[in-house]
């Protein structure tokens, strides 16, 4: 990221959903073919089956005809320059975009062969199965215990106090926070350090035993040590969860993910095994991005 290709910087710094000036759009558009992804976007028995997905913010087309499979118990990383649509795409997977009035989603998105955007589908049930961890740690201004217990409580997962205690303890253990937090479960969560807060948010997401966890740049607000802990955690969790992680750090993508998807200007340019993407990318845009020519 030290040397920046002057012709493409304009695109890289575009805010999400913003209109792209014509003269700078041309070179990338000529290289990318709409709806065509290089590498291995499809798998045999996918958890998520996403076909021809378009996302619009008002009149702006933020995601352009993306097709992708996400396998069971896979860690897949979404990388790409800012404004390329990777967060938008991630938030389609549990319909977090619903609360944005001007956002429309087209195409077929299926979780275990059931349509995510089916109007009859209950979004509450969907989000109980597809949990989410956000960019900035956002614990509730409540006690550590209540933070983790909130999900199980609203979904009625525990009938007795002892069951709830067990869920809280297990979730905190899985998030590697039990040792640090067990003596102060009643302390407010906002008093914890940033890294602890983010692991608490992960524990909170785990507590409702989701099948998928979406992570939107979970380490961008953390220091390297806290980042290392969260990455370790992702590696452990990959045994039992499907994890989709958006990241700006290519090293992080390389460390934690099995597959990596490269997004560019709303297109899904390339998907492949992580080591393949980082050692021998097939698409020239992927190559320029991971070699640090822009991004």
């Amino acid at each position, binding site marked *: 990221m030290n040397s920046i290709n002057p012709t493409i910087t304009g695109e890289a710094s575009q805010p999400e959903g913003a209109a792209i000036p014509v003269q700078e759009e041309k070179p990338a558009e000529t290289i990318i073919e709409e709806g065509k992804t290089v590498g291995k976007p499809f798998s045999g028995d996918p958890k998520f089956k996403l076909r021809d997905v378009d996302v619009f913010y008002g009149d702006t087309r933020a995601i352009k005809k993306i097709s992708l499979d996400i396998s069971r118990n896979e860690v897949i990383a979404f990388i790409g320059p800012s404004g390329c649509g990777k967060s938008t795409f991630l938030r389609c997977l549990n319909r977090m975009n619903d609360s944005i009035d001007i956002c429309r989603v087209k195409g077929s998105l299926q979780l275990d062969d059931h349509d995510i955007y089916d109007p009859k589908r209950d979004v509450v049930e969907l989000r109980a199965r597809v949990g989410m961890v956000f960019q900035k740690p956002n614990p509730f201004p409540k006690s550590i215990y209540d933070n983790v217990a909130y999900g199980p409580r609203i979904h009625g997962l525990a009938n007795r106090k002892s069951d709830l205690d067990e869920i809280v303890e297990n979730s905190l253990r899985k998030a590697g926070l039990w040792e640090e937090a067990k003596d102060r479960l009643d302390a407010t969560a906002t008093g914890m350090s940033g890294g602890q807060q983010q692991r608490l948010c992960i524990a909170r997401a785990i507590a*409702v035993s989701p099948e998928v966890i979406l992570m939107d740049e979970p380490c961008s607000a953390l220091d390297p040590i806290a980042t290392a802990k969260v990455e370790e955690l992702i590696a452990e969790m990959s045994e039992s969860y499907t994890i989709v992680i958006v990241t700006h750090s290519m090293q992080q993508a390389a460390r934690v993910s099995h597959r990596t998807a490269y997004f560019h200007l709303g297109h899904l340019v390339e998907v492949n095994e992580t080591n393949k993407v980082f050692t021998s990318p097939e698409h020239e845009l992927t190559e320029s991005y991971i070699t640090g020519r822009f991004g």
Partner: protein
Amino acid sequence: MTDQRSQAEIVRQSLKRRYRKERRFRAYGILAIAIALGALLTLFTDIIGKGYTGFVKTTITLEVNLDREMMYLDDPTDERQMKMADFVEPLIQALIQEIPGATEEDRDGVRDLINPYASVTLRDAIKANPGWLGTTQTMSFLTHTDVDVYVKHAGDEAYSIKLDEQQRAWVDELLERDVIETSFNDVFFSGGDSRDPSKAGILGAIVGSLLTMFVTLILSFPIGVAAAIYLEEFAPQNRFTDFIEVNINNLAAVPSIIFGLLGLAVFINLFGMPRSVPTVGGLVLTLMTLPTIIISSRAAIKSVPPSIREAAEGIGASRMQVVLHHVLPLAMPGMLTGSIIGMAQALGETAPLLLIGMVAFIVDVPDGFFDSATVLPVQVFLWAGSPELAFIERASAAIMVLLTFLISMNALAIWMRKRLERRW
């Protein structure tokens, strides 16, 4: 090199100018605050200087001989006899005895020293203690308002003393012997309005205010908060909701007397509710307070960080759960502060209540939501407009009571905000 030096020189010069500007700006600020504080101080000294005497009453202690024949009273339990009995004569006799040199011929002059309501006090005392009849009792009575004014304001140009020379001499003598005394004015806090300033109290107005405020609070807070939540969380963004929003903001700026007219037309004329009652007053003040509460509640809801909302939605909380579990608790301090400030405004409101008849002269302390009542600011309005100067000090005293209520409500708002505020 020379270039650099001259640049530094330019910066230095501009620095001086910048600091001068800053100092000037700070001076303006201090001046503005000083003017505001000065005005406040003047207001308080004026009100307290005029009004503190309103908290003082003047009483006279007499040895009253309750003679049956003098009072034409045999049996205090007999209603008819009580009605016919003379309770003034024992007082006059007691005064004549108390004042050296006063004779039967001074009856009229002596009678004017004691409050016209003293005979009522005496009657009530005898009614409560029938055994006192035929004995001599030491009792305290309010003095006549003219004596009260003379004791408090002798030598004050603003007050005209209505006592003649002889009466003044008597009062001076009695004051010296502590027969006439001044003490804390409990009458002011324990009674309703009266034509006689010495007897006038604000309890009626306080109770009226409390009843009215209660109606206002239980109506405007839930409706206001519910409206704010709906508009902020559930209402779709379209022309119609924009129209509602603009109109709520406009309502906040409508003069309060208009709300009074609306209340008169709708609640009293259309629905046929009674005049001068706290319920109608509360309804009118609810209309007036609602925009304030809605606007401040919406601001409080808006200030809840979206990250908290997302966190709850991400776990699978429904919209209602997000609002009830997360948004409301975080917005509550702001909502309460707005509501208390709205209530304080309503407490000090006079104009709309005049129109619905809460300006009537009401002696009794109201005992319900449908009993005629007046409120504190209207009581102040009534007394301040009275030609009798003794009422002016009562008005000032009532203003002090009103201000005490308002200041404590605002203090409560600040305390609640500090107390409930959660940081994240």
